[in-house]
């Protein structure tokens, strides 16, 4: 009733659009894990954006909660607690795509808006902000193609058995299959970690012919570069993953010998994106149930600019504003 009334007032022009609707509402972040640089940056983005939103009077409160053991049952309990605490919307980075469905259903039944992002949930009543990981794989091959490269590729994969690794890999694989110019001659699991990638690549290099390019998943590019250098081999085009060490290396190579590559990953600011989506839904805006998070790309031209958005030991970030989110959603609907 209250929402309807508020919407009517907005329509009549009696209230300014954003500020009045949701200023008494509360949005909570339920996060399952905080143990890596991406998640830390994600929580920081949430903090920055929501603090500003609270002081602007857009929202009453937007605290973040992280479960201590990264377990689905624990996060389900956390969501149930949030229902009791009377939040109007819950934004979730889920520990499991399915195990939270029961708790999310309860939240929806209690009239709470549920937005899942990054780690999304399959429950139909929740909004999903997914990442197109397949595209993150295929765009690498497209980039190599646009550079006029031909020949052997090395693929560095992520953590075996994890959904994200499978998705990116299948993107790379299908793009290579469609293109007779490329052939994957080696594949290692770098676990998205510089040291692991370096060790694994160093191990497989002696068995490989000349490599023209390396497809990666982020966090592993700098390690791969080190391994090629140590083996005394020519540096191939290594696709980067927006990590601070990767960009720094790229910059150094670019200045030294005009090295050209590209870098892409998901900005940790996706939490801010999810926050604005939740806020827009509360404000009565129409938002699609399934959305796709934009991939943040660093190119030869904006490298210097993007390095400024990348903190030491972290990932290139974008703090989405409400307007950014509106623009991206409008573009997605075209």
């Amino acid at each position, binding site marked *: 009733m209250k929402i309807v009334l508020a919407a009517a007032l907005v329509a009549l022009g009696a209230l300014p659009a954003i500020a009045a609707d949701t200023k008494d509402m509360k949005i909570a972040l339920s996060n399952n894990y905080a143990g890596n640089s991406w998640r830390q940056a994600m929580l920081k983005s949430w903090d920055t954006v929501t603090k500003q939103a609270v002081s602007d009077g857009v929202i009453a409160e937007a605290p973040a*909660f992280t479960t201590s053991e990264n377990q*689905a*049952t624990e996060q389900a*309990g956390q969501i149930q*607690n949030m229902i009791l*605490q009377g939040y109007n919307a819950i934004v979730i980075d889920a520990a*499991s795509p*399915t195990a939270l469905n029961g708790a999310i259903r309860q939240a929806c039944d209690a009239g709470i808006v549920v937005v899942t992002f990054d780690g999304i949930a399959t429950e139909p009543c929740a909004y999903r902000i997914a990442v197109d990981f397949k595209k993150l794989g295929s765009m690498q091959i497209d980039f190599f193609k646009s550079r006029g490269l031909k020949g052997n590729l090395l693929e560095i994969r992520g953590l075996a058995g994890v959904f994200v690794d499978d998705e990116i890999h299948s993107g790379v694989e299908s793009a290579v299959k469609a293109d007779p110019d490329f052939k994957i001659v080696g594949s290692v699991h770098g676990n998205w970690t510089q040291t692991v990638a370096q060790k694994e690549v160093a191990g497989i290099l002696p068995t490989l012919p000349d490599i023209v390019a390396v497809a990666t998943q982020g966090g592993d590019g700098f390690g791969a570069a080190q391994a090629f250098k140590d083996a005394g081999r020519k540096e191939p085009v290594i696709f980067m993953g927006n990590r601070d060490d990767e960009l720094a290396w790229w910059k150094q190579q670019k200045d030294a010998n005009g090295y050209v590559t590209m870098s892409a990953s998901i900005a940790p600011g996706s939490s801010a994106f999810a926050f604005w989506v939740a806020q827009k839904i509360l404000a009565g805006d129409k938002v699609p149930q399934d959305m796709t998070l934009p991939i943040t790309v660093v190119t030869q031209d904006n490298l210097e600019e993007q390095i400024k958005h990348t903190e030491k030991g972290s990932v290139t970030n974008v703090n989405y504003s409400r307007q950014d989110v509106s623009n991206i959603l409008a573009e997605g609907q075209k």
Partner: protein
Amino acid sequence: MSRQALFATAERLLPAITLGLLLAAIFTEQPRAMSYFGLNLLLSLAIPIMFATLAQMMIIAINDLDLSIGSYVSLVACIGSTLLTSQPWLGALALVCGIALYAAVGALIEWRRLPSIVVTLGLSFVWLGLAVTLLPTPGGKAPAWLSGSMRAQPAFAPLPIYFAAVLSLVGWLVVSRSSFGVILRGAGGNARSVARAGWSLLGIRMAVYGMAGLLGTISGLCLLGLTTSGDANLASRYTLVSIASVILGGGSFIGGRVFPVGAVLGAMTLTLAASFLTFMRINADWQIGAQGFILVAVLALRAMLSRGREAA
């Protein structure tokens, strides 16, 4: 009442007092929780933990420890969300096989005199492997009757309260009042004398592990009913939570000293402790520590009471 009896009563009542204090704290912090809806939300995830705790309690009663219960509960949830929905008879058969395997493991431990910790630790990887084979990526769907019955809203009190009451009563009747209970606790207290009295320790161990398997199966089904779909790592934390709940409920690792009512209360206490810490807005980094602190405080109190009883 003598002082000794007073201390003994206080010790027995400790799990109930702990739970009461925690509930009171939650109600003052979050008055909305003091309702049918609120209690249901707070305690619904305690239902599978209660069953897992009772499964662990059976094993602890005979001085063993089950490190595989968490992954077994996850496996049951995976069977439930795949086979039980698509081919109900095959699913039911798989669940029965799981219970039979549990009993067989009990027999193996008795027969070869193996340490239960090692066997069950190994077994936990077997369960996880089976679960991943069945359900490589999280998904599946719980049978409608299961998710429907876990959403039931009975009259007077929310579902978890009924579960707690019935489980406490049945557990108390079986463990503390029946002749099977006497043998069970006897096998934990002094296995040799039970064997000398003509009981087969092999049979006892098989029965105990089989019952633990049955309780673990019910736990997995309840959990699946709540989450509505499976995940191979759904319940991995239940292993440690169930052990902590048994101990919190007054049980000991040796001597066949277990208390079903206490164990049920312990399971509810541990579930609520996490909620309480969230309501208090305690930072996640401190939450595990704070939970541990609650556990240590209760156990220290119990040790004091039991020393007081012995001194009196």
